[in-house]
Structures are given as structure tokens and as C-alpha cells.
């Protein structure tokens, strides 16, 4: 049984660009609209880059305090995708 529910849908994201973040993450998703529902992120788990061919993808693991979300930013096409949701109720 895999606790992740795969979504793979393009979503609307409101990110925060932090100008004085130093070595910390300068761009972090803050709010997401998914199927009409507004989700506000409260915690960044991890961000890491990955590649699809030569396209740079930034993967963000976010949490709203209940569920975990994996969101990916395609840095070439500037598209945000909700890849999966991991339900807190499962765990």
C-alpha cells in the first residue's frame, strides 16, 4: 500500500520570494489553489532540484499541518504541478 495519492495536475500557486534569505530558500510556495480549494502551507519539508532531460525541476515538499504535498516547478516552462498528496489521516 502506497500512502501517496498521485495527482499530477497543474495548480495555481502563490509563492513568496524572499530577498534576504541568505543561503536559505529564496522562493517558497505559500498558497495553493487545488480544485477550487485554497491550501495554505505552514511548513517546508525539503526542496531539491531534479531533472527531466535537460529541464530543471524544483521539487518542494510542503505541509499544511495536516497533509504533505509535493509540488514541482518546471523552471523552463514556469508551470507548477501538484505531484502527490500524502494524507495525514493515513499516518
Amino acid at each position, binding site marked *: *500500500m*502506497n*500512502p*501517496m495519492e498521485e495527482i499530477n495536475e497543474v495548480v495555481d500557486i502563490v509563492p513568496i520570494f524572499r530577498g534576504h534569505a541568505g*543561503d536559505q530558500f529564496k522562493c517558497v510556495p505559500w498558497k495553493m489553489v487545488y480544485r477550487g480549494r485554497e491550501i495554505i502551507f505552514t*511548513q517546508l*519539508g*525539503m*526542496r*531539491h*532540484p*531534479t*531533472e*527531466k*532531460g*535537460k529541464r530543471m525541476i524544483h*521539487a518542494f*515538499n510542503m*505541509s499544511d499541518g*495536516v*497533509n*504533505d504535498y509535493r509540488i514541482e516547478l518546471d523552471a523552463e516552462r514556469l508551470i507548477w504541478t501538484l505531484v502527490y498528496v*500524502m*494524507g*495525514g489521516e*493515513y*499516518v
Partner: protein
Amino acid sequence: MYNDINKEKPMIMFIDLNSAFATAEQQAHPTLRGKPMGVTNRISKECCVIAASYEAKALGIKVGMRLSDARAICKDFIMLETDAPKYHQVYQKLVRIMKDYSPKTWMKSIDEGVIDFHGMEPTLNGRSLVDIGYEIKQRVRDEIGDWMKINIGISMNVFLAKQAAGWHKPDGLDVIDHKNLKKFYAERTLLDLTGIAERNEARLNSYGIMNPLQFLAADEYMLKKRVFNSITGTYWYRRLRGHEIDDFDTKLGMIGRQWVLRDPTNKDDLLRSYLSFLCETTGMKVRYKNVEARGVCVWARFRNGESWYAKRMHKSSFYTNQEIYRRALELFNQRPSGADVQTMGIYCYGVEPSKASQMSMFEDISKVGDLTKAVDEINDFYGAFTVYSANTIEGKKVIKQKIPFGGTEYFELLLKRA
């Protein structure tokens, strides 16, 4: 000089990420923190735990245990699939932190690294390695993630530093020097020592060496001539006393790949496709290492418990996927017919530096080299397995890249395929 315990100041720091993959997943997924969970390469009913969180370990769930057994211990045990780019990010950040303290740093594996502070005393400004160790722990929490924990061991050689890192898990920091070396050995069993597994333990036991203190007290002649019957005995004699003997580079001997079939089969077309996939990934590794090979070995283990292998050394070297597959297939066709293959593998040996840059007198050889280079460039640009052999199609559907546990030499290559 090797007869006494090394009394030099401990200057080797060993850093070990606690349950690295599982902790990285807990870092990424806050809802998993504090819960028994593990990771595996591909989730199936009988998949194995390749890393377990500390919460899972506390319940008795061990690495290598099947998912069904883990769930029997804890019904809420959560299993995730591995995510190589995530672990690479942790790895890169850890390397970056380590390199801030000494240019002499190296990774023993994805989750273990060594910092050699010899010659770095002037830059330490009088700070002790223990101070620096606590600083590194804090930096790991700040720069990688607040859930990340590391064990740190400090000692005179890599072996003892690793033992120190495992002394008080998780999140420990320990120093082993000539003053507390015997105290450390007194608290451990032979099996706790890295490099001593059941067979070596039995070997030591048969000469009356029942614990690490007796191992330390054993004389070099006995270890070399009787217990180990080789130079290994001398190495152990020195290693246990804190003298460095593990700081050498190993020579690349073979390059290969293996695969455990989910459903054992004797269907020739399927097995050939799996073999073709294994040959393609082996070929990628060969070219990534900029080497060529002269020998091929193909092996299989069958459902009935029997095993088989065939190997052949060739006069000319090779490096393309097609050449590896052609040679491997010749051997693979000699396997016992009818038996269901459960595990199969291939490796290339007789490895030598690549001669691909040399011009060939023969046009057909140059064409093969050019084609391979072009395919590699396309796959590098658009993602691995964009162009691949038609033989591989079925194999590609089922075989997944494994996370390398030992060395980190193929990690960059793996990420291209992730």
C-alpha cells in the same frame, strides 16, 4: 611502531547520517515524523525495507525485512519508494558542509563521510574537534533540515572513528583515543566491529578470541599466520590499535548490474529483454567511468535454488551496449534450459582505460563508436532511455534503477535516470 596503541591526537572525524533515506523522507514529509516508516526501491507485497526510521527500528523492524513481516510487527508501518534526487540533495549539502572544515574529505557511501583534520590545526584556532562536531550537527539541522540527525565519531583512524560514530546512536558524538580505547572495546562484542561478521567471528572464536578486548590482546603473528592466514591479520592488528591502514583507493575491477525477477520465468524473449536492459545500464556505467572491458560474465540463480554462470575473456576490448549484449547473449544462451530464472546479472571485467579517443583504421569500428556517442548525447540531453535498443523495451518496463548503497561513484549517473 604498530605494536603500541596509537597515542596521537584524534584527528579523523567520521560522519554518519542516521537512517539516511528514512530520515530524509521524514524531513521532506512532516506528517511522517515520529512514525515507524521505511523506504524500498519499488513497493510490492514482498519488497524489502532498505532503510528504516528510528521509530521502526525501535519496534524491531530491520533493514532487509520484508514488508509483510514489518506490517506483522507494526500494522501502521509506512513504506515509501526511494527518491534519488532527494537523497542526492542531502548528500551534496553534507559534502559542502564537510568541505568547509578540511580539503581532505571523502564520502565512504551516500550517508557516511570522513574529514581528515591532519595539518588543519592552524585553521582550527584552538577549537577542539568536539566543538567542531557539535557545530557540524547544528549546521546539518540548519542547512539540510531540522529533522536531520547525524552521528559523529572522532578518533585516530577511520575504523575507530566509525566505531565511535556508532557508539551512542542516534545523534551521538563520541571520541575514542588511547585513553578510552579499552573501555570502548569492553562494551562491544566482536559483531559490533565493522568488518567482523559471523564467519570472521567464528574464525576468531576458534582461536579463543571471544571479545574485542581479547582481539586487541592477540599477537600479530597469530592473527596473520593462524586466524586470518593472510596479511589481513596484520591489518586487523594495526587497525584495532588506531593506526591508519584503510586510506587507499580501491582499483576498479568489475562493472555490472543484477536484477531480481518479481515473477521467476524461463521465457526466453522476456529474459533476453531483461539481459539487454542490464547490458545497457552496464554499458552506461562503463562509458561513465571512461573505461573499456575485455571480459563478460553472465550469471543466474534459479527458482530451484541452483545457480549458473559463464564468463569469457576476449582479445579485444569493448564499451558499447551492443557489444556487451552480443557477448553476454552468447553466454546466456548456454544456461540450463527450462529452469525458472529468479535472479540474473552481468558484469564486465578486465577493465582498462578507454581507447575511444584513438582513431580507428576501420570505418565500421568508427561508426559504432560514433553511434554510441550520439545516442549517449541524446540521452544526456533529453533524459536517459530516450533512445535505446528495441531488445530492451520489455526490460525497461519492469526494471527500476536501484539506489546504490556502497560507493557513490555512480550517483551522478543514477540521477540522470531518476
